[in-house]
Protein backbone atom coordinates (compact mmCIF):
# COMPACT_ATOMS: atom_id res chain seq x y z
CA UNK A 1 0.00 0.00 0.00
CA UNK A 2 2.10 2.99 -1.19
CA UNK A 3 0.31 5.57 0.96
CA UNK A 4 1.36 7.96 3.73
CA UNK A 5 -0.40 5.70 6.24
CA UNK A 6 2.48 3.25 5.79
CA UNK A 7 4.98 5.89 6.85
CA UNK A 8 2.81 7.22 9.69
CA UNK A 9 2.25 3.79 11.21
CA UNK A 10 5.99 3.17 11.13
CA UNK A 11 6.71 6.54 12.74
CA UNK A 12 4.18 5.89 15.49
CA UNK A 13 5.48 2.41 16.30
CA UNK A 14 9.04 3.76 16.41
CA UNK A 15 8.02 6.59 18.73
CA UNK A 16 6.21 4.45 21.30
CA UNK A 17 5.76 0.90 22.53
CA UNK A 18 2.02 1.55 22.92
CA UNK A 19 -0.32 -0.34 20.61
CA UNK A 20 -0.89 1.50 17.33
CA UNK A 21 -4.25 1.04 15.59
CA UNK A 22 -5.74 2.45 12.37
CA UNK A 23 -9.14 4.18 12.64
CA UNK A 24 -10.43 2.30 15.70
CA UNK A 25 -8.79 0.44 18.57
CA UNK A 26 -10.14 -3.05 19.14
CA UNK A 27 -12.24 -3.66 22.22
CA UNK A 28 -10.16 -4.56 25.27
CA UNK A 29 -6.95 -3.25 23.68
CA UNK A 30 -4.46 -2.53 26.47
CA UNK A 31 -3.55 1.04 27.42
CA UNK A 32 -1.74 3.13 26.47
CA UNK A 33 -2.80 3.03 22.85
CA UNK A 34 -2.55 5.19 19.77
CA UNK A 35 -5.20 5.51 17.04
CA UNK A 36 -4.52 7.22 13.73
CA UNK A 37 -7.01 8.14 11.03
CA UNK A 38 -6.94 10.10 7.79
CA UNK A 39 -9.66 12.69 8.26
CA UNK A 40 -9.39 14.43 4.90
CA UNK A 41 -7.39 14.71 1.70
CA UNK A 42 -6.99 17.94 -0.22
CA UNK A 43 -5.96 17.58 -3.86
CA UNK A 44 -4.85 20.76 -5.60
CA UNK A 45 -5.75 20.92 -9.24
CA UNK A 46 -4.32 22.87 -12.15
CA UNK A 47 -5.77 23.40 -15.58
CA UNK A 48 -4.18 20.08 -16.53
CA UNK A 49 -5.78 18.22 -13.62
CA UNK A 50 -4.46 16.77 -10.38
CA UNK A 51 -0.88 17.91 -9.59
CA UNK A 52 -0.25 14.61 -7.82
CA UNK A 53 0.91 16.14 -4.54
CA UNK A 54 -2.13 16.04 -2.22
CA UNK A 55 -2.21 16.99 1.45
CA UNK A 56 -3.61 14.31 3.76
CA UNK A 57 -4.77 15.40 7.19
CA UNK A 58 -4.30 12.79 9.90
CA UNK A 59 -5.64 12.76 13.42
CA UNK A 60 -3.53 10.90 15.97
CA UNK A 61 -5.06 10.16 19.36
CA UNK A 62 -3.00 8.94 22.31
CA UNK A 63 -5.07 7.37 25.08
CA UNK A 64 -3.66 6.46 28.48
CA UNK A 65 -4.75 5.89 32.06
CA UNK A 66 -2.11 8.45 33.06
CA UNK A 67 -2.12 12.07 31.92
CA UNK A 68 1.66 12.40 32.05
CA UNK A 69 2.14 9.16 30.10
CA UNK A 70 -0.21 10.40 27.38
CA UNK A 71 1.72 13.68 27.19
CA UNK A 72 5.09 11.88 27.06
CA UNK A 73 3.94 9.61 24.24
CA UNK A 74 2.48 12.60 22.36
CA UNK A 75 5.80 14.40 22.60
CA UNK A 76 7.73 11.35 21.39
CA UNK A 77 5.40 11.10 18.40
CA UNK A 78 5.80 14.81 17.69
CA UNK A 79 9.58 14.48 17.66
CA UNK A 80 9.39 11.48 15.32
CA UNK A 81 6.73 12.69 12.88
CA UNK A 82 6.72 16.49 12.74
CA UNK A 83 8.87 17.97 9.93
CA UNK A 84 9.53 14.57 8.36
CA UNK A 85 10.42 14.55 4.68
CA UNK A 86 11.74 11.70 2.60
CA UNK A 87 10.92 8.43 0.89
CA UNK A 88 9.38 5.57 2.78
CA UNK A 89 8.26 2.25 1.33
CA UNK A 90 7.51 3.67 -2.10
CA UNK A 91 5.90 6.90 -0.91
CA UNK A 92 7.57 10.30 -1.11
CA UNK A 93 6.61 12.46 1.85
CA UNK A 94 7.14 16.10 0.85
CA UNK A 95 6.19 17.90 4.07
CA UNK A 96 4.80 16.95 7.46
CA UNK A 97 3.45 19.53 9.86
CA UNK A 98 1.90 19.11 13.29
CA UNK A 99 -0.84 21.73 13.02
CA UNK A 100 -2.89 21.19 16.19
CA UNK A 101 -2.63 19.47 19.56
CA UNK A 102 -5.16 19.31 22.39
CA UNK A 103 -5.89 17.44 25.65
CA UNK A 104 -9.12 15.52 26.07
CA UNK A 105 -10.66 12.72 28.11
CA UNK A 106 -12.50 9.49 27.54
CA UNK A 107 -15.25 8.14 29.79
CA UNK A 108 -13.79 5.76 32.40
CA UNK A 109 -14.06 2.05 31.65
CA UNK A 110 -16.88 0.31 33.48
CA UNK A 111 -16.07 -0.22 37.14
CA UNK A 112 -13.42 2.52 37.20
CA UNK A 113 -13.79 6.05 38.46
CA UNK A 114 -10.69 7.56 36.93
CA UNK A 115 -11.09 8.86 33.36
CA UNK A 116 -8.85 8.00 30.47
CA UNK A 117 -6.65 10.81 29.22
CA UNK A 118 -6.38 11.54 25.52
CA UNK A 119 -4.05 13.79 23.57
CA UNK A 120 -5.18 14.59 20.03
CA UNK A 121 -2.74 15.68 17.37
CA UNK A 122 -3.42 16.78 13.79
CA UNK A 123 -0.79 16.37 11.07
CA UNK A 124 -0.85 17.71 7.52
CA UNK A 125 1.18 15.40 5.29
CA UNK A 126 1.90 16.38 1.68
CA UNK A 127 2.91 13.37 -0.36
CA UNK A 128 3.43 12.37 -3.96
CA UNK A 129 0.91 10.12 -5.64
CA UNK A 130 0.76 8.60 -9.09
CA UNK A 131 -1.48 10.50 -11.52
Amino acid at each position, binding site marked *: MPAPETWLKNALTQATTAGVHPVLAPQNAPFPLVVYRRSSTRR*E*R*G*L*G*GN*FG*VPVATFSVSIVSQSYSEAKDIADSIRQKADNFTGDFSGVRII*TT*ALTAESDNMERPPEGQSKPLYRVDQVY*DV*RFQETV
Partner: protein
Amino acid sequence: MAYESSQGIKFTFSGQAFTANQIQMTKKLSEIDVSSLSDPTGSYRSYRPAPIIDAPELKVDFVGITLPQMTATGAITWTVDASGSNAAFTANMPTVALCTSADVTAQVGELIKGSATFRLTQN
Protein backbone atom coordinates in the same frame (compact mmCIF):
# COMPACT_ATOMS: atom_id res chain seq x y z
CA MET B 1 -25.05 30.72 -23.42
CA ALA B 2 -22.01 29.11 -24.96
CA TYR B 3 -19.33 28.06 -22.53
CA GLU B 4 -16.00 26.28 -22.59
CA SER B 5 -14.29 24.34 -19.86
CA SER B 6 -10.82 25.50 -18.77
CA GLN B 7 -9.95 21.99 -17.60
CA GLY B 8 -7.34 20.22 -19.70
CA ILE B 9 -5.51 23.28 -21.03
CA LYS B 10 -1.74 22.84 -21.12
CA PHE B 11 0.51 25.84 -21.64
CA THR B 12 4.10 26.05 -22.86
CA PHE B 13 6.34 29.03 -23.57
CA SER B 14 9.55 28.67 -25.58
CA GLY B 15 9.25 24.91 -25.26
CA GLN B 16 8.98 25.03 -21.48
CA ALA B 17 5.84 23.46 -20.00
CA PHE B 18 4.11 25.10 -17.04
CA THR B 19 1.73 23.50 -14.56
CA ALA B 20 -0.71 26.34 -14.81
CA ASN B 21 -3.60 26.80 -12.46
CA GLN B 22 -4.80 30.11 -13.84
CA ILE B 23 -4.45 31.91 -17.15
CA GLN B 24 -5.81 35.38 -17.60
CA MET B 25 -5.75 37.39 -20.83
CA THR B 26 -6.43 41.11 -20.69
CA LYS B 27 -7.27 43.11 -23.77
CA LYS B 28 -7.17 46.87 -23.53
CA LEU B 29 -8.12 49.50 -26.05
CA SER B 30 -5.46 52.16 -26.56
CA GLU B 31 -7.06 55.57 -26.74
CA ILE B 32 -6.31 59.16 -27.68
CA ASP B 33 -7.87 62.13 -25.93
CA VAL B 34 -9.38 64.28 -28.67
CA SER B 35 -11.10 66.80 -26.40
CA SER B 36 -10.88 70.40 -27.55
CA LEU B 37 -11.03 73.90 -26.07
CA SER B 38 -14.50 74.28 -27.59
CA ASP B 39 -15.92 71.51 -25.40
CA PRO B 40 -18.29 73.03 -22.83
CA THR B 41 -17.33 73.10 -19.17
CA GLY B 42 -18.45 69.95 -17.37
CA SER B 43 -18.71 67.83 -20.52
CA TYR B 44 -17.04 64.46 -20.86
CA ARG B 45 -13.66 64.21 -22.53
CA SER B 46 -13.76 62.73 -26.03
CA TYR B 47 -11.69 59.69 -26.96
CA ARG B 48 -10.88 57.83 -30.14
CA PRO B 49 -9.10 54.54 -30.65
CA ALA B 50 -5.35 55.04 -31.11
CA PRO B 51 -3.83 54.12 -34.50
CA ILE B 52 -1.23 51.95 -32.73
CA ILE B 53 -2.62 49.67 -30.07
CA ASP B 54 -1.21 47.90 -27.03
CA ALA B 55 -1.13 44.15 -27.47
CA PRO B 56 -3.09 42.03 -25.01
CA GLU B 57 -1.35 40.83 -21.84
CA LEU B 58 -1.36 37.30 -20.62
CA LYS B 59 -0.91 36.43 -16.93
CA VAL B 60 -0.14 32.85 -16.02
CA ASP B 61 -0.11 31.48 -12.45
CA PHE B 62 1.73 28.20 -12.15
CA VAL B 63 3.20 25.69 -9.74
CA GLY B 64 6.95 25.27 -9.86
CA ILE B 65 10.22 27.09 -9.46
CA THR B 66 11.38 27.46 -13.05
CA LEU B 67 10.69 30.89 -14.46
CA PRO B 68 10.15 31.56 -18.16
CA GLN B 69 13.03 32.93 -20.20
CA MET B 70 12.84 36.70 -20.46
CA THR B 71 15.41 37.48 -23.11
CA ALA B 72 13.44 37.13 -26.32
CA THR B 73 10.01 36.47 -27.68
CA GLY B 74 8.96 32.86 -27.54
CA ALA B 75 6.32 30.64 -29.00
CA ILE B 76 3.27 29.95 -26.92
CA THR B 77 1.55 26.66 -27.47
CA TRP B 78 -1.77 25.49 -26.11
CA THR B 79 -2.93 21.95 -25.98
CA VAL B 80 -6.26 20.65 -24.82
CA ASP B 81 -7.56 17.21 -24.07
CA ALA B 82 -8.83 15.58 -27.23
CA SER B 83 -12.18 15.14 -25.58
CA GLY B 84 -12.31 18.73 -24.38
CA SER B 85 -14.67 21.35 -25.67
CA ASN B 86 -12.24 24.27 -25.35
CA ALA B 87 -10.51 24.08 -28.73
CA ALA B 88 -12.30 27.25 -29.81
CA PHE B 89 -10.89 29.11 -26.82
CA THR B 90 -7.29 28.07 -27.38
CA ALA B 91 -7.53 28.68 -31.13
CA ASN B 92 -8.01 32.37 -30.38
CA MET B 93 -5.18 32.66 -27.88
CA PRO B 94 -1.83 34.31 -28.68
CA THR B 95 0.99 32.28 -30.18
CA VAL B 96 4.06 34.54 -29.78
CA ALA B 97 4.83 36.71 -26.77
CA LEU B 98 7.52 38.38 -24.69
CA CYS B 99 7.75 37.54 -21.01
CA THR B 100 7.79 40.93 -19.30
CA SER B 101 7.71 39.93 -15.64
CA ALA B 102 7.95 36.82 -13.51
CA ASP B 103 7.98 36.03 -9.83
CA VAL B 104 8.16 33.02 -7.59
CA THR B 105 6.79 32.64 -4.06
CA ALA B 106 7.73 30.11 -1.37
CA GLN B 107 5.33 29.97 1.56
CA VAL B 108 5.09 27.75 4.65
CA GLY B 109 2.97 24.69 3.99
CA GLU B 110 2.49 25.48 0.32
CA LEU B 111 4.02 24.39 -2.94
CA ILE B 112 6.38 26.89 -4.54
CA LYS B 113 4.28 28.92 -6.93
CA GLY B 114 5.07 31.46 -9.61
CA SER B 115 3.42 33.82 -11.97
CA ALA B 116 4.48 35.43 -15.21
CA THR B 117 3.17 38.15 -17.45
CA PHE B 118 3.51 37.98 -21.21
CA ARG B 119 3.01 40.72 -23.76
CA LEU B 120 1.58 39.40 -26.96
CA THR B 121 3.69 40.27 -29.98
CA GLN B 122 1.91 38.25 -32.63
CA ASN B 123 -1.52 36.74 -32.94
